[in-house]
């Protein structure tokens, strides 16, 4: 499970370098995300531009990932492909998560911390 973290001060961007978040990798995804997200900052943006397939296990892992961030922190999403967007819409999870068009829209105005 390839995930990459970039820091933007008030937010972190976690880029998913995988085509699929499915039953085969859901637990790995959730665990890796928890490691990378750490305990701060409050905003965590998951960039799923590379992901073209998300099944219900993958969706459950995204929800679990948000919950494990804890109160006061927020998981947002960026770069949903049409089918991933459809899964969020069908299950009404699009009303739960803040969804950005792409990663740059999610961190607009924030400087990349090296």
């Amino acid at each position, binding site marked *: 499970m390839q995930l990459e973290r970039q820091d933007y001060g008030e937010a972190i961007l976690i880029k998913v370098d995988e085509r*699929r978040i*499915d*039953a085969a990798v859901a637990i790995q995804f959730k665990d890796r995300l928890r490691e990378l997200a750490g305990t701060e900052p409050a905003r965590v943006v998951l960039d799923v531009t590379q992901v073209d397939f998300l*099944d219900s296990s993958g969706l459950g892992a995204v929800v679990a990932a*948000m919950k494990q961030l804890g109160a006061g922190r927020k998981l947002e999403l960026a770069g949903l492909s049409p089918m991933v967007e459809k899964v969020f819409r069908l299950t009404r999870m699009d009303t739960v998560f803040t969804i950005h068009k792409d990663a740059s829209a999610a961190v607009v105005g924030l400087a990349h911390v090296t």
Partner: protein
Amino acid sequence: MSHDAALTPRAPRSPIKITLRATPMAVRDALAEARGGWRDLGLDPATCATAEQVLAEILNNVVEHALPDRPDALVVLECDAAGSGMAFEVRDDGDPMPGLRLPKGAAADIGEDPALLPEGGFGWFMIRQLTRDLSYRRQDGLNRLRFVIDRRT
């Protein structure tokens, strides 16, 4: 007039029949094989994406709930895409559906508190939203699930 080989259609391979083991990685491979088969049949990408989504949910359910401790068991998937809809049948010899009926697949309950959000139960809801003529039969020790996905025209 010379015969133009490029205009000769490839023999359509329908119905598609795929046999897979009951593991999540085998499900991935089976979905890739199905996608290839649908592409050869010239099905449109939107219909194929819907079919893959539904099939993933169905096959994952079989692996997780009907055959949880039997990774070597075989699951058979058939897809007939010749008509206006793609007709599917999935068979396995695993545990029967509880109560011998399909889960209702109600929409997940989304309240105000994110800490209480459901992490599961999305699968059957999506299956019911994206298919028609969904049916389940338990016969001679086999689970047989059938459904149709309409083709975009």
